[in-house]
Structure formats: C-alpha cells, structure tokens
C-alpha cells in the first residue's frame, strides 16, 4: 500500500532518463520538477526484527575473548583473524540477518554467549533462540517454538559433537549448517568456512585459578568446595553406576562427548562445566537461571536426597569449576581498537596476498564497525550528550575519513590496482591509528563509552522504540 503511493510520488519525479552526459539538462529537468506534497499512507514499523527485540548491543561489559594463539604470546594466524572477521560480519549470513546487522558475533559475543539476547517469537526467555524459527529462514521453520540456549563457544575444540543434541560430529559441518540453513546465508567459500572453524577452535576457556591438573581443585579451594568435589564423584544412591563426574569427566573438560536423558525432555549432550558461571541460562533450552536450580533438578530426577549442606557444597563446587579469570572487558575505545587492529593487520596481509574475498570482507566489516563506533560519539542532534561537541565532531570526522579510505582501498582492488590499494592502506593506517585513535581516546568521557551517558541514551532509546501497546501501558 505504502509502496504504491510512494512509487507514484517518485515516478512523477523520476521519469526515464534516456542517455548519459548529453542529457544532463534533461536529467536536471526531472529533478527540478515541483516538489509534490503527496500524502503517504501511514504505514507501520519497517524494522526487520520484531518490536521488543533486545540484542544487548549496548552492554557495558563484554565477554573477554582469549585466543589460544594470542595466549601463547604469538599473533593470531591469518586464518584465525580471517575467521574472526567473518564471524563478526553480517555479510556471510542471509538477507534478513544482514539487514538486522546480525552476525555470528551477535549471539556469541567475542565467542562466548549472550544471556540477554531476546527476540519475540524466536525466544521464550533472554539467552535462548529458536534456530528453526520463521524469522531468518522460512524454509528451516519447523513451526514449533523450540528455542535453545545460546551456547558459549569457549573451548569448542574439546566439546564435540556439536549442537545441543550432539547431532553433528564435525564443527565444520555444524558451522556450515548455521550459515546456510539457520541464517539463510550463501554457500560460504571453503576458505571462509575453514577460517571460521579455525577461529572457533582457537577460542580458549578463560583460565581458572581454582583448577589444577586433571580438573581437580587446587590448594586454593575452600572446605565447602572440597566437600562438593567429593559429592560430585559419589555414586548416585539409586544407581551406583552413575555419578555427576561419570558424565562430566573432570580430566576431560567436564564432558564425555555423549548424549544422555537427564529428564529434561530428550537426549542432550553433556555440557561442559568450565566457565559455566558465565554461561547462564542452563540446560538445552535455557530453563534454569542458576546452578542451584540445576542441582535441584538432578536431586529431584535422580533421587539424590541431598541435604541442604550437600546442595550448598555442590553449588560451591560447580561455581569453583565454572569460574574464570577476568570474564569481562569493559567496552572502551581501546577494546574496539584492539579488534580494529587485528582486522587491519589482516587487511594489510590480504592486500599483499591479493586475497580479494578477504579484502572485501575486511572493508565491509571494518567499515561497519567504524560506523558503529562513530555513533558512540553522538553529534549535535543527540540531546542526551552535552559537552565537548567540537571534539566529538573531530572524532566523528576522523572515523568517517577512515571509512572512506577503506572504500578507496576496495575501489582500487575492484579495478585490480593493488599498488594503489597498498598506498591507500598506508593512508588508512595513519588515519586510523595516528589520527582517529587519539581523538577518540581524548573524547571518550563525552561518548557513549561513558557508562552514565550510555545508560541515559539506552533508556531513552528503548522508550522511543516501544510499540504503541507498550507505550500506552
């Protein structure tokens, strides 16, 4: 409806132009026809995601990413960096995801999970998501709202098989299925698929200061935790062949790579307990908020007859096993530039290797992230932020210049001029790290990296984006 009216309005102004430069005057004629004050029918929301969606993109604390190659003191490989890039690029997914600016990294923030993500019609609670729902790929819609918990990918290389029910032995097959079937993306190239798998396999568990060799608690553990550890290995009273540790093997990343029926509605693979403190909600569908509820479930289903102290001890033990050092980074200019730095290095290497696919992906993803970063430094139109307007504008202008420099690289590559691309990369590098970065750091207190400003901005924005029904409450 709105489309017809709008076409009508536009057709009056955009009659066919027949020719190129010689018909400039004719084109001028077309654009200069009177500005028609035609009514648009009032239409509704044209957002891709349903109203009330929460992607948690304004979170102040973001999961810390520990890459195995970096942890060992090396730089990440080209392959891992390319995978990281693709993982954070909406371009590898289908139309709907791209329009909603959703990438793998939206749900698996820095390779971890996203406990607050909620999409009406696709989630039943924050932190779960129906990968066979109607939104991203109608062909994969199973017509049942059966969301699964968004899993953390930390330590994924130790956690085969893949999927909550362990349906796929190969991580590569699993990733391809997510891209193509769950998110309706185009068939990824072998190089991109390999890179994403290499990246995921490089994501380490956060180091846990309480665990020693063979997954045992070390000397720093408390009495309570030690009692919990003993209970964890104790045979179940009704079935002495079973114990917690029988499936969650402490020496094996707390998994046994098998599926079991633990009374949650089917066969599901044993989840790791490492870093589990940061992986709520729990169970395949995210039905439990905390580890206490998880212990209660097993107590009930397996008749463990736990005393209050037993229950407390087990929870304390699970929390010790589930711990991790420095689980979050505070979102900041420097956190953003760490990622920009990784992707910039990749871009330089890709230009050197004439890897067009990687260059295109880097320009697209970096450009998107830089544009997002620009919006963290609001301009004069945002009344929630006052002060340092000139500096904010300088920061914004610098970032925008970086984006255009990236585009110049892409244009040079399109025309096959890799020398020009190399020269422009030097400009890009200087603009990014010598000009934009110091400006951004200096202006950070007046940006949405300031927690108070971000909170004020976020609250008002959420209020603005409420549906009419919500607003009338």
């Amino acid at each position, binding site marked *: 409806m709105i489309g017809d009216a709008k076409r009508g309005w536009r057709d009056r102004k955009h009659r066919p132009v027949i020719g*190129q430069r010689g018909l400039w005057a004719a084109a001028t004629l077309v654009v200069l026809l009177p500005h028609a004050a035609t009514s648009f029918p009032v239409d509704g929301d044209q*957002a891709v995601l349903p109203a009330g969606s929460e992607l948690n993109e304004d979170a102040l604390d973001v999961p810390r990413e520990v890459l195995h190659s970096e942890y060992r003191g090396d730089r990440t490989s080209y392959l891992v960096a390319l995978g990281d890039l693709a993982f954070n690029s909406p371009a590898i997914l289908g139309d709907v995801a791209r*329009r909603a600016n959703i990438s793998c990294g939206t749900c698996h923030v820095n390779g971890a999970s996203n406990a607050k993500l909620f999409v009406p019609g696709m989630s039943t609670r924050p932190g779960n998501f129906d990968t066979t729902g109607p939104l991203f790929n109608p062909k994969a819609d199973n017509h049942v709202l059966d969301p699964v918990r968004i899993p953390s990918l930390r330590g994924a290389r130790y956690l085969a098989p893949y999927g909550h029910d362990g349906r796929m032995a190969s991580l590569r097959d699993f990733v391809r299925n997510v891209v193509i079937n769950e998110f309706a993306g185009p068939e990824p190239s072998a190089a991109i698929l390999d890179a994403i798998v290499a990246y995921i396999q490089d994501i380490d568990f956060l180091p846990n200061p309480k665990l020693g060799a063979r997954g045992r608690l070390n000397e720093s553990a408390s009495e309570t935790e030690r009692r919990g550890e003993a209970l964890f290995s104790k045979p179940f009273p009704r079935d002495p062949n079973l114990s917690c540790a029988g499936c969650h093997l402490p020496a094996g990343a707390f998994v046994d790579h098998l599926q079991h029926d633990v009374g949650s509605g089917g066969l599901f693979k044993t989840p790791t307990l490492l870093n589990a403190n940061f992986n709520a909600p729990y169970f395949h569908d995210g039905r439990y908020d905390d580890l206490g509820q998880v212990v209660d479930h097993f107590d009930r289903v397996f008749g463990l007859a736990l005393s209050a102290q037993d229950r407390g001890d087990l929870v304390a033990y699970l929390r010790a096993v589930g711990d991790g050092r420095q689980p979050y980074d505070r979102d900041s200019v420097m956190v953003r530039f760490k990622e920009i730095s990784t992707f910039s290095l990749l871009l330089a290497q890709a230009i050197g290797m004439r890897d067009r696919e990687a260059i295109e992906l880097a320009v697209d993803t970096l450009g998107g992230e830089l544009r997002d970063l620009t919006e963290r430094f609001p301009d004069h139109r945002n*009344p929630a932020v006052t002060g340092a307007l000139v500096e904010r504008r300088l920061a914004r*202008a610098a970032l925008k210049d970086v984006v255009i420099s990236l585009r110049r690289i892409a244009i040079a590559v399109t025309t096959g001029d890799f020398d020009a691309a190399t020269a422009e990369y030097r400009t890009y590098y200087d603009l990014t790290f010598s000009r934009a970065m110091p400006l951004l750091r200096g202006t950070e207190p007046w940006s949405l990296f300031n927690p108070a400003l971000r909170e004020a901005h976020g609250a008002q924005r959420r209020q603005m984006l409420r549906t009419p029904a919500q607003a009338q409450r």
Partner: protein
Amino acid sequence: MVNAVETRMSDRNGVVGAHLPHARCRRAAMLGVIVAIALAANAGAAPLEASAEGYRRYLIEDIGQALNGARTLRERLVAADLDGAKRAWIEGRIGWERSEVFTSGFVPELDQQIDAWPNASHGFHGIEVKLFGANRTDVGDETDALIAHLADLHAQIENIPLDPQRLLNGVARLAFEVGGNKADGGESRLSGTSLNDMQSNVDGIELAYRVIFSGAIEASDPRLADAARAAIERIKATVRISDLRSLDAEKLRADSEELVALLQSAAPKIGLSKPTLEEGSQ
C-alpha cells in the same frame, strides 16, 4: 551565463513555485529555472558562489514545505484527526529531509531543536514518539515549538550566506549518512517512514549537487563528473524501493562511500578543500 544567473535571481525575488496560485504558472516558473540550469551546465563552470546562491530558492521551498506540514499538523491536532495529523507529519518531513544538506552544518542549534535524535522529547521525533508510537494527539506544545523553529529557520535562510565549501561538506556528509545503518528500522522507525527519509535525503543530495557543483566539476574533470553522476544514479536506484526491509544496505553503503570519495577528489579541482564529513571539525 549572465542570463542564467539573472533568471534564477529574479525567480528567488519573485514567486517561488510552491507559492504560486496556479499549477500552470508554477510550471512556467520551473521551466525557466530548468532552462537556466541547463544553460549554466552547458556554459561550463559557473562561479560556485552564484550556483550556491541559485540553490537558495529550493532551500526556501523545502523548509517552507516542512513548515506547511507542521502547520497542517497543528490544524489536524485541533480537529482531533489522528490520521490527518500523521499524514501532515510525514509530508513535513519530505522538505526537511531534502534540506539536510544545509541544516546539519549551517544551523546545528535549530537542527537539534527540530530534528533531535534518537533521545528526542521535542522536534519531529519527539512528536513521532507520541503520535505514531502511542497514537496520541496531545502534542500541541511540541508542534507549536516545531512551527516556531521552522518559521525561524524559514526566515533566516533568506539571508544566510551560502558558502560553497560548507555546502559541499553538507552534500558529502549527507551522502555518508545515507549509507549508514542507524539502527534496525532506521531513523523514523515508529512512523515507518525511514525509507522516505532516505529517499528525500538522496533527492536533496542530487538537487544540491546538480544545482551547485555539477557544472564546475563537469568543466574541470568530465570523467569525475560522470562517475559522480553514476554514483548518484545508483544510490537513487537502490533507495527506490517500497519497503525498508528490502533495502540492499551493503550496496547503498558502498555507493554512498564511493560518492563521498569522488566528492573528495573533485573538491580541489573546483577550488575547494576536501570536504569534512562533520561540520565544525574543519
């Protein structure tokens, strides 16, 4: 050449299309302008200052349209006509979004009063929150303020010097912005008119580019002019859709950034500096 400029100047001092009583007179006046612009384009580089001056009448007309929309909105509110009020709001946005080439850089304080975003309690988006977001018509005070600010702007633009450098900054800045993904659903999500905003922005870019810069760029570097014109045509084609959800955002972004790059390259060839993409930062 002189005729061309004179024709435009006399148009500005006389009746502007939107204010003509009859469509036929209006068309006749427009035809005069069309011929004048075509002549200017053919004659090569008009002094940029004169071309910029020629842009003023469109600016006045666009802000006038926004003002008329706001006044109609006020009438519809008084009549408790919710749908009519919504239509008036949408119509007012057309002229406003077309003139963003100018407003953001030249009158940022009024821009904030009129078009605060996203945390708006006033201006177009403050009204949008209640009118579209909650189907409420109690936005009389906000609308009165909007009318006052638009009327203020409408009066001011008669006399504000139209510096070509700042206008080029404005064209480049808006071209960059059109390529951006402000958020899912766009700038005017509640009214569902974000796509209209983008279309009007692109119209505004094309208008300013053609009236002010195309002749000079054509005269100094025809290939660059061809490339810029082609980029604008691609951007127009990309936003000529009926639903924001079918927008090819990556293509739009690539084309908009290419246009900015071309304008950056063109600037020194027409005696201007590389445009800043954020007014007040040069």
